[in-house]
């Protein structure tokens, strides 16, 4: 897709202009809700780089990462079992469909009451909430593997292990990644929610605390950081996906072109 010079210029200039406008329009602001952009950025640097970096930023990110990895591994594993063992699938189907409809954030109070306010609660909440999208996508991905591929693996007498690891898993990976992307979003949201509801540490907790103490610039700094983290985490995921699914992306592009 050729992007013309003109579009490049527009694409870069527009957000830059927006930021500049924000800066100048808010420069002398005494509005308690919308402090000057400059103040926000100053507080951003003071808070996150590096005073609270280790105690809060790394903490939040660590929980996010740990919870997501657990959810991904468990989701894929459980998804495989559910997809391949029919009785398990029949038993779990209604339960899963019911549980997936519950807003993940609503599970946090339950975990608080069961596990308390510590790190375990947060990681557990993240992991359990993020489990479902990946598990469901894994089941869908495996069940929709083309019958022809399965016939090929039988005709050439692939062993069961080969069939699962070398045919089913790669074939289901595009769909698994779709599930992982949703899981990542859910993990991010629950990370923030679990901190806002039951913690004094972490970016979410600090942001809420700032809001409740009317330290508006600090609150904005927290929101900004969360937004940036959400954006960056997604970019990292997209890069990973492009690497792992290069074959899929390539073949889809060709299919669309024909």
């Amino acid at each position, binding site marked *: 897709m050729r992007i013309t010079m003109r*579009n490049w210029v527009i694409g870069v200039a527009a957000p830059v202009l927006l930021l500049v406008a924000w800066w100048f329009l808010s420069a002398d602001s005494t509005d308690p809700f919308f402090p000057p952009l400059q103040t926000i950025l100053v507080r951003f640097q003071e808070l996150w780089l590096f005073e609270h970096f280790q105690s809060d930023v790394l903490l939040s990110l660590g929980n996010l990462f740990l919870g997501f990895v657990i959810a991904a591994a468990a989701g894929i594993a459980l998804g495989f079992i559910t997809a391949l063992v029919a009785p398990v699938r029949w038993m779990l189907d209604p*339960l899963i469909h019911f549980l997936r409809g*519950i807003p993940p954030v609503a599970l946090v109070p339950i975990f608080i009451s069961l596990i308390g306010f510590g790190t375990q609660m947060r990681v557990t909440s993240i992991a359990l909430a993020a489990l479902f999208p990946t598990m469901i996508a894994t089941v869908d991905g495996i069940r929709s593997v083309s019958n022809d591929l399965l016939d090929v693996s039988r005709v050439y007498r692939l062993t069961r292990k080969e069939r699962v690891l070398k045919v089913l898993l790669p074939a289901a990976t595009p769909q698994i990644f779709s599930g992982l992307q949703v899981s990542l979003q859910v993990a991010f949201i629950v990370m*923030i929610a679990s901190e806002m509801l039951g913690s004094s540490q972490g970016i979410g907790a600090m942001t809420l605390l700032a809001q409740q103490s009317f330290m508006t610039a600090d609150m904005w700094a927290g929101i900004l950081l969360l*937004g940036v983290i*959400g*954006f960056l985490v997604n970019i990292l995921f997209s890069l990973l996906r492009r690497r792992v699914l290069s074959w899929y992306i390539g073949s889809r592009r060709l299919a669309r072109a024909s």
Partner: protein
Amino acid sequence: MKASVRPYAFSIVGVAGALVIWQLLAEAKVAGTALPPATTVFATLATILGTGTFWSSLGATIGIALLALALSAVAGVAIGLLVGSFESVKYATLAVLEFLKPVPPIVILPLAVLVLGPTAEMSLLLVVFGCLLPIVMQTVDGVQGTDPVARDTARSYGMGEGEILARVVLPSAMPYIGTAMRVAAPAALVVTVVAGLLGGGPGLGQNIYQAQAAGDYAGLYGLVIVLGVLGLLFQGATRLAERRVLHWHESYREVEPR
């Protein structure tokens, strides 16, 4: 047992088994009083369903979600048509949209609560923030996917640009918009609950927070179950609505079995 009945039998066993395990764990006081027995929860739920406050709360949740959904749909389609039809607009907004895409509403929750307080307006703002962007982006996809032949045919019949937009572009973008709505509707419900739970907005979210804070664990679990059922109903309703509106589109035509 007949093969066709077996899945349902297993499903029933699965649900029943889960309830039994729940009951046993609760009575063994595995988590102290935090895990109330299933029987208590359902009894409490029955009581709650008899109160007026529950139904007005439920109404508030559904009302806010639907209203926000409608607002997002109207604004989203309008913005999407604009962005999709004019290349310069598309590139000007590209950076901002791509940055906001992975940012969930919970990130701006502190700001919304600060400015609007724990009100229905705050909830509305949050839900619109969450639903607007996917609708815009899908509308843009739909506009850009309009069959150029259809567009040229309309132009050769002397239709003006506005008419083409309304009579050709919009209908052909409908499936995309439909998909966005199908995804946005449950999201609207979820964000409404989050706004209530974390921000104090009206509705079931707030009730859940109060139940947990007051130690009313049976009520807490009961409300979560209500949310699960509500989620299922929302999913089903949106699917029905989509089918009704888009029954003419290709993806819904019966495919001839080979």
